[in-house]
């Protein structure tokens, strides 16, 4: 086994699995191009081949040298201490990964589940809005329940969840809660500074992007969020 660890095998397995998936999917667009004999697949398949070679080379490196930094790499490579931070925070065990990926499923659940329920119930009009609000509320509840157990996982999830909700609930309604959420997850727990900073950041963004640059930000599709967003835009512009 040389200096190989389970993590190295998982890493190699992920890369090779990705290569296999991309190669199989490339048959979906294997079509001839009259003026180009290599077709649409030659370039991506060349990349896949190189990725496979690099993944195997990386596995060989791990087998021979473990986690050692390569000699040919400029030392600048190691300036990024993300790996060390992960090690120090004990975020390398399978339990932490499982919990993090569990949290990361929440935004994707919001992107899919309300549509399934709407289709199942053949809902229309305000019922659709209600279903989306209820789904969002339940998923926010689940997120809050689990976030205390894995703060870093929660920080990874919160922006994605914010982005998933953006289309329905709009930037103007969500941004204040998002600001408070990020501050809380970064360890700020004093309510007064949190409220003051939230008002400052939100006010500055509104002034710069809405009042001065007239950037159209998403107002949302669901009542009452759409009304709130439209009201903010009307007042500022």
């Amino acid at each position, binding site marked *: 086994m040389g200096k190989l660890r389970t993590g190295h095998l998982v890493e190699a397995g992920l890369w090779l699995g990705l290569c296999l998936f991309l190669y199989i999917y490339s048959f979906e667009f294997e079509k001839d191009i009259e003026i180009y004999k290599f077709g*649409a697949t030659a370039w991506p398949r060349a990349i896949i081949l190189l990725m496979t070679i690099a993944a195997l080379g990386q596995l060989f490196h791990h087998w021979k040298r473990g986690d050692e930094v390569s*000699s040919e790499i400029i030392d*600048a490579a190691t300036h990024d*201490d993300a790996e060390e931070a992960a090690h120090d925070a004990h975020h390398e065990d399978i339990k932490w990964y499982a919990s993090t990926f569990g949290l990361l499923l929440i935004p994707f659940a919001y992107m899919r589940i309300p549509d399934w329920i709407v289709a199942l119930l053949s809902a229309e009009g305000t019922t659709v809005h209600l279903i989306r609000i209820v789904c969002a509320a339940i998923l926010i509840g689940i997120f809050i329940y689990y976030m205390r157990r894995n703060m870093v996982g929660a920080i990874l999830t919160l922006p994605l969840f914010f982005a998933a909700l953006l289309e329905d609930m709009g930037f103007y309604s969500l941004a204040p809660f998002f600001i408070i959420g990020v*501050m809380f997850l970064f360890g700020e727990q004093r309510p007064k500074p949190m409220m003051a900073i939230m008002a400052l950041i939100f006010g500055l963004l509104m002034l710069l992007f809405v009042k001065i640059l007239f950037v159209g930000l998403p107002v949302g599709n669901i009542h009452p969020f759409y009304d709130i967003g439209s009201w903010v835009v009307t007042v500022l512009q």
Partner: protein
Amino acid sequence: MDAFDNFLTGTITLFSDPIGILIFFGGVIGGMLFGAIPGVSMLTLAAILLPFTAHLSPEHGIMLFSVIYCTGVYGGAITAILFNIPGAPENAPTAFDGYPMTQKGQAGKAVGAAVMCSALGGSISCIIMMLATAPIADWAISAFGPPEIFALVFFGLAVASSVGAKTFWKGWLSILIGLMVAVVGLDPVGGIERYDFEMPYLLAGIHFIPTILGFFAVSEIFVQAEKKARGSYNAPKLSVDFPSLSELIAHKWAVFRSIVIGFFCGILPGIGATLAAFMGYNEAVRWSKNREEFGKGKLEGVISSETANNAATGAAMIPLLALGLPGGALTAMMVGVFQMHDMEPGPLVFLNSADLVWVVFAAMFFANVSILFVGFLETKTIINLLRIPFQFLAPMILLLATVGAYAVRGLTIDVIVMFLAGVVGFFLRRSGYSVAGIVLGLILGKIGEQTFAQAMQMLHFEWSGYFDRPIALGLLIAGILTLCASIYGAFFKKKHPTTQMTG
């Protein structure tokens, strides 16, 4: 003499028009600010401003973008140095030594070097651009066809694989994943959908602005969150200790080398400042007697990267104006400005709108000079941003990035892509991969495939055709030799004793 007269005319036209002056200074300050504010970049500002240029004259519109280009490339260095968040890919190598300098309490010196070298590199590049536009453009047109550009992309990627990741293999995997992301969408020859997973959004490909924001700005926030979790987040130390003239004179060869590298990378369509900065940095490492000091806060690293990327800005205007070929994201947006005014960039611009060309050249020269003055004043204000606790800065960065990603096309899916890129970047970074490599692969991937396809069509699908093109052959051989040397090192060489994790 003609060039000087034209420059003088351009300068008088620029500074005799009050609206022109206002737009010039707005561009200088806006470019620097948006380049410097973590989470946004000059591209964000340009994307926001693009629709509004329809209300400006073509001279003012193009001049605004060219000024933002010059000062924004410098502005991105500030965040690279202070926060380890390059404002744009061309500032990525600046972070390699700039950020360690900040951690050592030498932020002021690193920023000061970036100010002086950006102004110097940019100004000299502008002067060369004005003096040599016609002959250089003629040479590039005749000597650089698709085979040469493809060969240069290959050489650039081969060089970049040794920077940023923990091992040579991870460096290549990073670049290859970027190249793979660039494949998504329509293929450049037949327009066939690839990896679109039947999602209409993916037909247009994955946009590089949300991806860049995600990989650099968002993943950095996540890494800082993890540091917070282990209780070791340290706000960078502050100082305003600018480098002395003697320190800069001591690095005169690094400056000269980077200007030459930056200019020649900038002039080639589709290559631009990103490769210039990487090559400027790499050459500084290669020529240095103290290679082991790079990556740990060496002033020469910042000087080389910042001189090279600003030297590329002036040169990048040559293919845009002479051939209508954008060298990068911002010059591509400039094509949009031309089109909004029913104009096409290309040789006809020199004939029909010589005034426009020389106003733009004059504005770029003075924008680079103004980096020296405005940069010193503004940087001190920006350094004070470091006093803000990170828990207050993080939501601001994330929301600015959200607005930046959304403003490009008005799609919330771009925001989702950005945060997904942030999550992926976070996991890749903690495993020793290079996000700069991914972004370089993403940007050069499309150009690489397009030029490869054009080259093979030109050469009638015969690889031996490269033997008739000495520049392309030379670049391919240089790329292959670089690769072979790296593979040899990966398999047979012992780890260099001075190569240590710097943390």
